[in-house]
């Protein structure tokens, strides 16, 4: 529940935005945040943009995110085939 995902703002219509998380689009309310522009990265939490991300650092963390997801996927796969916990 405390998880929030980084998302890129694609378009803004009033206090709602369309954002993209790894290619999938979501709606995000901008009711509780200021100064969001198209192209910004935001943290999306239960349908609300709760904070703007520093773009430079967001891209870096997205990259890490993808790598860890990939790493995890492989670990999970190995775990389920060997029945062992690896990490």
């Amino acid at each position, binding site marked *: *529940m*405390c*998880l929030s995902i980084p998302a890129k703002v694609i378009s803004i219509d009033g206090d709602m935005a369309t954002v993209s998380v790894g290619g999938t689009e979501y709606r995000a309310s901008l009711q509780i945040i200021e100064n969001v522009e198209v192209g910004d990265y935001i943290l999306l939490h*239960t*349908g609300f943009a*709760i904070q703007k991300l520093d773009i*430079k*650092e967001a891209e*870096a963390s997205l990259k890490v*995110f993808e790598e860890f997801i990939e790493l995890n996927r492989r670990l999970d796969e190995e775990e389920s085939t060997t029945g062992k916990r690896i990490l």
Partner: protein
Amino acid sequence: MKYMDEYRDRGLVDHLVQRIRDVSKVPVRLMEVCGGHTMSIQKFGIPSLLPETVELVSGPGCPVCVTGRQFIDKAIAYSRLKDIIITTFGDLIRVPGSTSSLEKEKASGADIRIVYSVLDALQVAMENPDKKVIFLGIGFETTSPGSAAGIKRASEMHIPNFFLYSSHKVMPPAMKALIHEGIAISGFIAPGHVSTITGTAMYEEFPQRYGVGCVVSGFEPADLLQSVLMLVQQVENRKPGVEIQYKRAVRPEGNPKALQVLDEIFEPQDDWWRGLGVLPGSGLRLRPAFQHFDAENEIAVRVEETRDEKGCICGDILKGLKQPDECKLFAKACTPSDPAGACMVSNEGTCHAWYRYHRHG
């Protein structure tokens, strides 16, 4: 770019672990107070990477876990009333109440809908004007501004059939209560997403009054290890302080707009926490001007007497006093598919995270 390269470097984790091993001399006990951290720490097996001098314990950071069974019992009672629709985040639906759960009530015909956002719950209210729609509001400062925005919207649009049943809580009183109870903590891995809203001023009294440092951390392994390193360094240098590791998302001042909406709609109230009891000013209730949206105010209901699960030691686990494998029910009478206690339900719960990632280790 410096920051980027570091984050891309897969050797970063090893590098950080080595740094911690080099620096850490004094034994430390670090507590995370965010369910997202609990999940990441177990998932990535962080404790097994750390030297013996560094112990990690989980605190009261999972909203579902600290919420009392009484809250669930009342939600169940509401769901049994005529013309009520319950809207809730998915996490809550499987939490066992005294004799039932929302999931069981749904199976036997209650109108209970899982929503992703409070705005979806508002939508349900607008589409069902002849029903009363109750949204179960749980969560810390990350989630409560959303509920506040939902109430604000309901008020502006004059939606008369939308109600909030609030169990929203704020984090600092719980952190303070742990210290007052004398629980040994050398530093807090402070909650990342809570802090995006609140900023860091609220942590200042921990180093100042109690000598306990706080590092606001992100959620990736490198984030968490870096935060551990920062806390270890604070202890070694005897310089506890408030630092932000999760700089890409957390600013010292937080999110002023969210804080303003939160303050407009909610006021503090005393609230009950599993393991910690009633803590002054640790909960949020609607301000008088919005009390007509308060389910507890507006919808009378009789609730069965609360009975807590015998043998569940969730309370001690949430205080960092015990680990899940010290519970007799763990992985036997209590599993994620048939949870006996709240800490086994949400994937942010310590027992759940242990069951998934730690059981064989």
